[in-house]
């Protein structure tokens, strides 16, 4: 093989390979088998263990750029919570999170749980500014900031809000996030001071930053698309009727191929690098000789 050609490969070929690596699995949709890891299974088991009617807060702290990773997590959690007849409270510490919650409502609640009543089984509180300040403010009193739901209805008129004073009334907080404020802030400003179990779902890049909190301060964590797929796998294993709703499992194929392509490129890049180095060493020795 011509090492010089390999070393100076046009990066457009790499772009083309990556595009093919993503498109082809998307077209053929291979079936990927995923096994839930303990850190993801911990969230699933917690929701399974909660008695009917328990309150779960699902916070949408991300935007459209990380939807492929975050949205399947949020939808799987919402589906699981509603299936188990727990009370679902939705809020957003990111301005874009409110729109993602609306998407979740459309694709999960209005599709699979039409019989659930707004205000009795689920509520959407919407976005409030303030980042971690917002979390700190609603820990002691949710009405400090949320006097109405997202549609402007007074929270005192919403049945499932009547016995909620603050975040301490929640049995579980699940934050789906991709930055600041995110899971870390929910742990620091709600979980730790309020002694409330906090679980999270974040992008693969951010997951590494949260491992120091697991398992004492962070109940469980879904990291990236893999984490979302693992949660869906756990859900489908117990409730097979949700197989067709498993978005993350469907798009794991392209991610696997993309990861493998990057590994191959790293190996090829190093082969070219060492071959060039050997050649340079030989030339240098030849000149010295």
């Amino acid at each position, binding site marked *: 093989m011509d090492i010089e050609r390999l070393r100076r490969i046009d990066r457009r070929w790499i772009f083309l390979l990556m595009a093919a690596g993503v498109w082809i699995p998307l077209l053929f949709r291979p079936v990927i*088998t995923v096994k839930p890891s303990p850190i993801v299974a911990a969230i699933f088991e917690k929701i399974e263990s909660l008695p009917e009617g328990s309150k779960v807060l699902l916070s949408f702290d991300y935007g459209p750029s990380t939807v492929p990773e975050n949205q399947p997590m949020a939808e799987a959690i919402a589906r699981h919570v509603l299936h188990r007849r727990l009370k679902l409270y939705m809020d957003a510490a990111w301005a874009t999170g409110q729109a993602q919650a*609306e998407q979740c409502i459309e694709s999960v609640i209005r599709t699979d749980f039409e019989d659930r009543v707004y205000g009795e089984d689920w509520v959407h509180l*919407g976005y409030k*500014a303030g980042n971690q300040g917002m979390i*700190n403010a609603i820990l002691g009193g949710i009405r*400090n900031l949320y006097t109405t739901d997202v*549609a402007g209805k007074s929270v005192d008129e919403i049945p499932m809000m009547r016995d909620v004073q603050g975040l301490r009334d929640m049995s579980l907080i699940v934050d789906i996030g991709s930055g600041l404020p995110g899971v870390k802030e929910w742990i620091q400003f709600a979980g730790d001071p309020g002694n409330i179990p906090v679980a999270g779902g974040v992008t693969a890049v951010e997951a590494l930053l949260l491992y120091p909190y697991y398992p004492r301060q962070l109940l469980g964590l879904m990291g990236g698309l893999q984490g979302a797929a693992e949660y869906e796998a756990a859900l489908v294993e117990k409730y097979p009727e949700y197989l067709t709703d498993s978005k993350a499992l469907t798009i794991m194929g392209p991610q696997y191929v993309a990861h493998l392509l990057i590994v191959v490129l790293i190996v090829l*890049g190093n082969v070219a690098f060492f071959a060039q180095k050997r050649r340079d060493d030989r030339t240098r020795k030849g000149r010295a000789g």
Partner: protein
Amino acid sequence: MRRQIPLLITFFVGSMLVLAMFIPHEPFSASNDELSVWFDIIASFAFILGGGNLLRVHGDKIYRRRRDWIYSVVTLAGFFVMLAAGIVSGARAQGNAMSAGSLFAFLYDAAYAPMTSTMFSLLAFFVASASYRAFRAKTREATVLLVAAFIILVGRTPVGYYLTAWIPPPLEFLEIPNLFGWILAYPNTAGQRAIMIGIALGIISTSLRLILGIERSHFSGD
């Protein structure tokens, strides 16, 4: 007075919040709640400041016809269209601009979401190109990083399992999925904790300097 009053407010509020953390009883806990709400109200004004700053920077660029000023026109047009759509849609749906079928929701789903997703997706191509050109075992440290990255990347795919499935049970800790878990649970967690403790100490010292009025650089830029 222009300096003393803000310094006194900073000292009072800072000390109060620190005390509230360690004494979660009245009157400190109530003041913590109250001050958090004040903070959130002030934070809402950041949107006005942000919008004002965007107008100032891009307006100036267009006025002076600086390089690539046409992109500033696009930025401001996008800003005003989304702002108007948000106000109109919000007014029609009691504040929920994202209600189904609203103009704002349409623009968000049809323009904003695909554009941000596209920008983020481009990363895949640049990461692939960078992995080929830059990720090389040039030094011992770079080699360690490379091996760790290899294990993490392969460990997240089924290939990681199949590559090392032949390893006998006494050596199963060498299987790639197990190495992947070990890297995340030990070297990664240890490094992250060290960084977090360092950052926390830095935040404590900076906060103390602010509360005690030693750090004054936030006043009028001096």
